[in-house]
């Protein structure tokens, strides 16, 4: 039984209003600045699997070669207290420099990119191309029977695009997962 289950149980009996807020499960986008060193990703992923937290998406890349820093963007979901635990557990890792909850800390933009392969001929092929145009997806590969589209946007937009392609000969999808950044002048 994971730790968060017990706290959930406790909250069931707790103060009514607190219960409601705490019980709600929300999706959060968390940015983590880490040393770019061997094993750091394994530490973060191991933390999530070991403690039974969700990972909806996780992306990582080096963002500051001078200071050897990488940025990890994690989309996760949980109650308020679980999200708080996740952030505190992340902060406990020695190579972690900063943890920010973009969802809580004001407006931010988040994007992901998907490559979507669609095969078909005739009317369906035309329709796929038309929808790609509406979504401002780029065609990055084409044969007589197929396209590969590159679509960029919010997770919702990417999902909507893929859904529409399902009936038009969707073959496979490759997605980057979410990257996100706060609006305005301040860095992480």
């Amino acid at each position, binding site marked *: 039984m994971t730790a968060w289950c*017990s706290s959930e149980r*406790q909250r069931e009996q707790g103060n009514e209003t607190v219960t409601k807020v705490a019980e709600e499960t929300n999706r959060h986008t968390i940015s983590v600045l880490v040393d770019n060193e*061997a094993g750091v990703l394994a530490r973060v992923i191991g933390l999530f699997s070991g403690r039974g937290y969700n990972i909806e998406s996780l992306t990582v890349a080096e963002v500051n070669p001078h200071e050897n820093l990488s940025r990890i963007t994690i989309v996760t979901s949980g109650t308020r207290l679980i999200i708080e635990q996740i952030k*505190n557990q992340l902060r406990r890792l020695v190579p972690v*420099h900063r943890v920010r909850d973009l969802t809580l800390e004001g407006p931010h933009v988040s994007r992901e990119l998907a490559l979507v392969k669609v095969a078909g001929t005739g009317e369906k092929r035309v329709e796929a191309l038309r929808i790609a145009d509406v979504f401002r997806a780029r065609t990055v590969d084409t044969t007589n029977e197929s396209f590969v589209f590159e679509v960029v946007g919010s997770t919702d937009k990417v999902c909507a695009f893929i859904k529409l392609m399902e009936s038009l000969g969707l073959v496979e999808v490759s997605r980057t997962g979410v990257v996100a950044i706060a609006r305005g002048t301040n860095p992480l």
Partner: protein
Amino acid sequence: MAQQDSLTGAEILLKALADQGVEVIFGYPGGAVLPIYDELFKQNRLRHILVRHEQAAVHAAEGYARSTGKVGCVLVTSGPGATNTVTGLTDALMDSIPLVCITGQVPTHLIGNDAFQEADITGITRPCTKHNYLVKDPNQLSRVIHEAFHVARSGRPGPVVVDLPKDVVQARGEYQPLAKVTPKYRPQVKGDTASIEKAVEIIAQAKRPMFYCGGGIVNSGPAACQLLTQLVRTTGYPITLTLMGLGAFPASDPLFLGMLGMHGTYEANLAMHDCDVMVNIGARFDDRVTGRVNAFSPDSYKIHIDIDPSSINKNVVADLSIVGDAAHILEEMIAIWRAKQYRADERALRAWWQRIDTWRSRNCLHYENSTRIIKPQFAIQRLYELTKDRNPYICTEVGQHQMWSAQHFRFERPNHWMTSGGLGTMGYGLPAAMGVQVAHPEALVIDIAGESSIQMNIQEMATLCQFHLPVKVFILNNQYMGMVRQWQELIHGGRYSQSHMDAHPDFVKLADAFGAVGLRAEKPGELDDVITEMIAVDRPVIADIRTDASENCFPMIMPGMAHNEMVLGPEDRCMEKPGSEDDGMVLV
């Protein structure tokens, strides 16, 4: 780099350990660490205690660390040597014990090849260490060692592994002195003053206050224990300690209600349940302590002080939380209490103490003694009475004997009680006692053991004999895995599945075979003589105390029950409401 300025990796390692003030290392050699052992051979400064199993090296380092407040140090070889440390590392992680464990590794060019005695030890130990390192460059070695010690002892302490490939230990590199290394890991030690002020104000207004403190006070150090004692005495409020906290506040003080939790006292648990302000300092709301979480101290305002933010709101939601080191925060709390001239609400406090005294008068640790057969509680009491003047260090294994020790031995000072709380590792006590004795050669060090647990690391008797470590092993021999038998009796309908061992060694002969002294007591009348002789002998001793096999450890909060639903004794089986297995406290 000039060849004459550089050192081999092994030389760098020993120099770094010396700079860190390491005096003793618990270890076991093997191919991957032979260059390090060669270097050890050439010097006299660093003492090496050769254990008989690597798990024991880690527990010994834990005992050393817990009894001194220093970082314990371990050295083992690659592959099986390293994997044997996993239980010890996990134990140290759960109980917040600072360790640095150096593991050998196959040469860097062989890593990933399934080389002889290769194990991915940074991978294996990632979830059971506070942090770990694989060193690939001898020029980084000294920095990593210094950082490892810093991480192990700072913030919430814990074990750190440094994996050293053989070629790195043999290559030459440059040494970076400690002064030149500035670690980036900087946990918060000072608490937020506004929150501390608010906490003190709420504490001063409490009508039914309760201090609930734990191992974090011991981690923080003797100063924190003194400050805690001062604060509690200034307020006149009751205090309870967790298993890990015993000794942080003197047991003889009437303000101390004893340990709380599953096998805690009636008065401590009821006071926790009924208090209106709970002050948790350095305890982590473990499920053995809270019982059923949704019935845990339902009406109290909870203040939680902990150095690790992730301890807060993990199991129990705090109304006010302060992140920082216990000693720092306690000092500020006392200063604020004085400056604002706070006073406890005397009338309310008197009424509260009256209720507590009624609970106390139940005398929940009472047991029916016997003249025929040695009751385990009686054995602990006699051990306490006959040794207390010597201020002994007590280690335990895991089981009923551990709980009876916690209940009946009384600790006046911190760092004198070494037990495996979070992981509950049978086999912890004997090697831990070994480490304590290494740190305190003149002290009386006792491992209170069960006959089953002791067999998990009994091989360390040989280490005790080799290094003239006169540890006393005091076995409460009930012929059973008593704690398992107790659960089977109370919860599994008396079906004693695999909790009885039909064959035990003759512990007296076994002691003899190791070159130690074996003693035995079978009747209550023999007990004092055996204890007296055990203390008098200046050699390792195994005392085989034959105790009542059917005795159970009470009080007990059954799994899934609340603090106010304790079972006080065999005649008090209030089992109408068997708890759900999902509600915590489900493991022996």
